[in-house]
């Protein structure tokens, strides 16, 4: 096993706020590694530190064996990065954006010209290479940024929320590109996302991050297995009653959350009639009942007690409060 990225006790504080709190993990060579968490969980801060644009408060990390604090240029040469916000020059053409990047990374002319053509073909923008970026759609811009990030043949590619703000179709398309890339270029990819399906589909391993801490790290399959089987969600006005009525050894986990009771159990289909009968006997009304295979959303909920969307909302509210306070 070879390590592409090694992170040890990495911490970043902004005043009183601990944005990233002593996180440690290793990413293997050739892996697609996901940092999954709500907005403001510390994903981008982690990525910024690993890409040397932000200095850690404490802790260490290496990228391809290069220390992020000691040799910033070394790290920068080894990585390609696609930022969360667009970073193209809209007044230039696709080709010129690529060329600018190639020159900045001092790629010799012949290799540069050849790679630009090859990468523009890979992301299917070759026919549009002489068009001004201003005329490009969101998905095309993203593809161009990915192609640009690969131009200097980095060992590790950083993707910060690669599909944020894109429509579902474009997102699917982009996922295919990323998968192809990982296979064809044999490149290590670290991506941040707050889309569960994205992490599930693309990543070999996922670190779930919340409030600056890694709360779980494993393959998507094993994370979902940790739930303890299928997920049964019962909506009812009497959630407390359900908890007592359904105490049974075949239920692995039971949580009450927001007017719902969420059960985890193996072979849920077989037990469904038992559950409904039991609740009827106890005269507990059921508004709705549903069964699904566990998703990363369930994993996040079981580890944090909140859904990722609720966490997002909380963060947004506190941000708003923060800004309001700043203004006064």
């Amino acid at each position, binding site marked *: 096993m070879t390590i592409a990225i090694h992170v040890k006790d990495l911490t970043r504080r902004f005043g009183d706020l601990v944005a990233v709190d002593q996180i440690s993990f290793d990413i293997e060579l050739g892996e697609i590694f996901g940092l999954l968490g709500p907005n403001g969980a510390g994903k981008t801060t982690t990525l910024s530190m690993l890409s040397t644009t*932000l200095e850690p408060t404490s802790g260490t990390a290496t990228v391809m064996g290069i220390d992020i604090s000691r040799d910033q240029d070394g790290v920068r040469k080894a990585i390609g990065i696609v930022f969360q916000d667009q*970073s193209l*020059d*809209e*007044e*230039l053409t696709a080709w010129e954006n690529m060329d600018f990047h190639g020159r900045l990374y001092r790629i010799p002319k012949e290799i540069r010209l050849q790679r630009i053509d090859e990468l523009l073909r890979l992301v299917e923008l070759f026919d549009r290479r002489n068009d001004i970026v201003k005329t490009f759609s969101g998905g095309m811009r993203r593809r161009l940024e990915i192609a*640009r990030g690969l131009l200097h043949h980095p060992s590790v590619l950083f993707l910060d929320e690669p599909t944020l703000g894109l429509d579902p179709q474009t997102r699917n398309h982009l996922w295919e590109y990323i998968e192809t890339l990982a296979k064809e270029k044999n490149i290590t990819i670290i991506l941040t996302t707050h889309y569960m399906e994205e992490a599930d589909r693309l990543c070999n391993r996922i670190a779930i991050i919340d409030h600056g801490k890694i709360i779980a790290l494993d393959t998507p399959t094993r994370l979902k297995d940790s739930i303890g089987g299928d997920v049964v969600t019962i909506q009812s006005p009497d959630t407390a009653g359900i908890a007592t009525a359904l105490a049974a050894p075949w239920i692995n986990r039971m949580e009450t959350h927001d007017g719902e009771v969420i059960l985890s159990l193996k072979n849920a289909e077989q037990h469904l009639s038992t559950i409904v009968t039991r609740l009827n006997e106890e005269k507990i009304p059921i508004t709705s009942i549903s069964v699904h295979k566990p998703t990363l959303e369930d994993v996040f909920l079981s580890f944090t007690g909140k859904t990722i969307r609720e966490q997002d909302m909380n963060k947004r509210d506190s941000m708003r409060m923060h800004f309001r306070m700043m203004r006064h």
Partner: protein
Amino acid sequence: MDIVYTIWLRSMKRYVRSKSRIVGSIAMPLFLLVFLGFGLNSVVSTTSLGQQYVMFLVPGMVAMSVLFTSVFSGIQIIWDKQFGFLKETLIAPVSRLEIMFGQTVGGATTAVIQGIILMVLAVLLGMRINNPIGFFIALGFMILVGISFTAFGIAIASRMEDMTGFQLIMNFVVFPLFGLSGALFPISSLPGWLEPITLIDPLTYGVEGIRYGLTGVSQINPVISAAVIAGFAVAMTGIGAYLFRKVSL
């Protein structure tokens, strides 16, 4: 050097494509030249100038177009910040100094081209350059003014988050620099108390130098002008580079 060239190349590409900006920034000095120049030509006494007022005004307007274009070019870094492109530049394994020099050279080049365009228009309006050496002297001063104020713009942009302060800088810093520089009137015609203020305005030396080149007459010794504006260019580049180094992503 290759990085400076890369950034310069981008500035040039953007400049050539921004037709409206080229026309827009030439319009103001050209209109001033026509309106003030021809309007006041017969009113202003020519004895103190040694030439027609409209011809006196040409170097001032050339300096004006160089000044405004270069400040604007420098300040454009704020757009790069807002549109995210600055990240792409700053994450690359190159030094901040190279990036800053590239921006400065690029901005100064566009400013000097704007100045030359105005000069050509002035020739069409009847200006005569006495000798070709004079043109190159003027060009040298234009380059120094361009470098100084692009670096000035970069310094300002490094400390600003968005374009909201832009008008403030233009109205309270750039315009007074221009107004006090002797671009519109001979320094000697000012009241005594205002003259020292004019003499601490670095642009005065740029205008005087360009005027010496184009008309052969100036109120400040061109060697002194060259020394002052060159010193100012070096100082501004230093300050700009220092502040740009501190820009965080």
